[in-house]
């Protein structure tokens, strides 16, 4: 619609200058115009029809041939045609008629058509037939004379947008990874299922031979049996498989934990005679920490003392489980364990590890010559602290001298532990050290010394406690000091309270002497 308006506008504007430019006109006569028009099929909004001012007879004969007419007054108009190439043939049919041009379905004269065509020509919507032919020829000639060269290299839709490609590749990789992972899990699961099924089968295979060996043979008989003969109790083919031997080892160790008496000796003997120790040795040399730990547990459970040197290599392993099990095994099995392995441990001992070792040490200390004092020489603070705790828990008064030496180079944490040990063992001879700690700037050392002085303190301790009280400390510390003084010497305590009659002191005293509140 806007294009149509534009053409009308241009047509009227150019109409005023049409005469002035007649020397430039495309067509000088109507014949020239018609001969041009017949070379085109349709021209934008330029149509034609025929006007009859003839006798009705001629019209009737044409109407019989299927030509439609419209009667306007005494004239007859043919239907409107738009195909200019058929003008000649139609004109032959409509002989005696007059050609009428229609622009936008409105009648127009020769000059109007020329102006309209010039307007179309200027906008490129109408090209003279001769110009069209020559331009077509020029284009072909140009194309022949110059080689084709693409303006841009060919790019696929994938490579033209790198962001889209990156997203697509990421999604693809993700899907590939997911599928791979699912496949991996399925394979792993099926492998594990197969292994579990085999374990059940092997479990049943080991029951009868083990049961009969344990009940039908006594220890002497088992010792007399050769290795190969003992193996013959078990099915030969599965015995060659590592999984079968692993099941057998687990069953023997499981039984060893649940049985008492000579059955334990029999199981250990069977373990060694079946050369399951080879599997244990292999595990001890493995690079996987889980295998090494399993191997150490086997050594521990089956008392395989011949592997203690291999176990000792793992006492300073970076892996907690490995070094913990190795330490426990050495403590359990070694005849001449002297705690050197613990002294040389570079990794800190955890609370759990200390508890584990303590349980074993408590059990074996009576039968083995444990050199706890070695631990005080360790470079590892946690090992030295553990040594101090051992002195306290095992009640090793003979090591107080070593503790005294230790305090000369000890860290605050160790001093706290030493003070605690002195308190637990009632080490009165160390009162000078305790008194010196009462004056410490370190609040943890001072607090522990205050606690210990309640039982071990002397007159010097009383003086220091009062000195500390005179500095008007915070209520918790004041209560701690007064509590120690009260337990150390009630008379001195009363004197202090009387001379320092403060509300807080009175409240603390009330609580200390109250049989119920003193424990709150």
């Amino acid at each position, binding site marked *: 619609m806007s294009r149509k308006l534009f053409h009308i506008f241009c047509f009227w504007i150019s109409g005023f200058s049409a005469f002035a430019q007649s020397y430039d006109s495309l067509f000088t006569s109507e014949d020239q115009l018609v001969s041009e028009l017949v070379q085109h099929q349709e021209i934008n909004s330029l149509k034609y029809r025929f006007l009859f001012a003839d006798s009705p007879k001629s019209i009737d004969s044409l109407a019989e041939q299927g030509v439609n007419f419209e009667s306007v007054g005494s004239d007859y108009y043919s239907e409107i045609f738009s195909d200019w190439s058929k003008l000649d043939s139609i004109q032959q049919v409509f002989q005696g008629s007059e050609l009428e041009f229609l622009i936008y379905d409105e009648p127009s004269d020769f000059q109007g058509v020329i102006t309209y065509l010039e307007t179309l020509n200027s906008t490129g919507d109408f090209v003279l037939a001769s110009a069209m032919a020559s331009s077509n020829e020029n284009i072909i000639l140009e194309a022949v004379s110059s080689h084709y060269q693409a303006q841009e290299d060919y790019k696929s839709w994938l490579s033209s947008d790198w962001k889209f490609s990156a997203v697509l590749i990421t999604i693809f990789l993700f899907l590939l990874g997911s599928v791979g992972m699912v496949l991996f899990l399925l394979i792993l699961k099926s492998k594990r299922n197969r292994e579990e099924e085999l374990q059940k089968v092997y*479990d*049943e295979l*080991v029951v*009868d031979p083990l049961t009969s060996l*344990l*009940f039908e043979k006594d220890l002497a008989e088992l010792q007399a049996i050769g290795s190969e003969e003992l193996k013959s109790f078990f099915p030969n083919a599965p015995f060659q498989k590592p999984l079968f031997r692993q099941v057998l080892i687990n069953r023997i160790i499981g039984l060893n*934990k649940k*049985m*008492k008496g000579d*059955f334990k000796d029999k199981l250990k003997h069977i373990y060694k005679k079946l050369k399951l120790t080879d599997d244990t040795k292999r595990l001890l040399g493995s690079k996987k920490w889980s295998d090494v730990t399993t191997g150490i547990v086997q050594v521990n459970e089956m008392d395989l003392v011949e592997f203690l040197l291999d176990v000792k290599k793992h006492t300073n392993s970076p892996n907690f489980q490995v070094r913990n099990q190795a330490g426990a095994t050495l403590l359990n099995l070694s005849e001449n364990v002297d705690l050197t392995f613990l002294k040389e441990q570079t990794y800190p001992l955890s609370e759990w590890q200390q508890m584990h070792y303590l349980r074993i040490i408590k059990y074996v200390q009576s039968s083995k010559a444990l050199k706890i004092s070695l631990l005080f020489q360790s470079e590892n603070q946690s090992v030295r602290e553990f040594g101090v705790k051992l002195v306290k828990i095992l009640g090793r008064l003979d090591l107080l001298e070593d503790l005294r030496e230790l305090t000369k180079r000890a860290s605050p944490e160790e001093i706290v532990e030493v003070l605690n040990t002195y308190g637990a063992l009632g080490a009165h001879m160390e009162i000078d050290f305790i008194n010196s700690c009462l004056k410490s700037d370190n609040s943890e050392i001072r607090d522990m010394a205050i606690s210990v002085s309640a039982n071990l303190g002397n007159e010097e301790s009383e003086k220091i406690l009062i000195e500390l009280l005179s500095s008007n400390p915070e209520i918790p510390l004041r209560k701690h000091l007064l509590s120690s003084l009260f337990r150390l010497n009630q008379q001195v305590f009363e004197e202090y309270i009387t001379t320092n009659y403060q509300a807080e002191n009175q409240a603390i005293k009330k609580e200390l002497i109250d049989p119920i509140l003193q424990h709150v």
Partner: protein
Amino acid sequence: MKKILIIEDDLLISSLVQFRLKKDGYETILVKDGNEGIEAINTSNPDLIITDVMMPFKSGIEIINHAKRNFPDTPIIVLSSLGEEEEVVLEAFHLGVTDFVPKPFNPNELALRVKRALK
């Protein structure tokens, strides 16, 4: 021949106990979990029950409860680890079990306890 029901989820332990008791001429029935245990008590009417405490599906306590309600005269020996389940074992004694054999155990000692319980 006296019939002994052994309820134990560890196949090797139950096989060992079975082997030892068969040597003494007892007939044994072996089941591996609590459900099978209750069913076996109902169907086989054993002369003595040996049971573990911690088992799949139904615990030893439930088995003892069931046996004492339905067969109050059948002696029961609990074969379990005292250290791990002290409260449970005490409960078992309250329910009226005949004896308790802690793990680790000696099968010969268990055989003697079975003999005494069946007298």
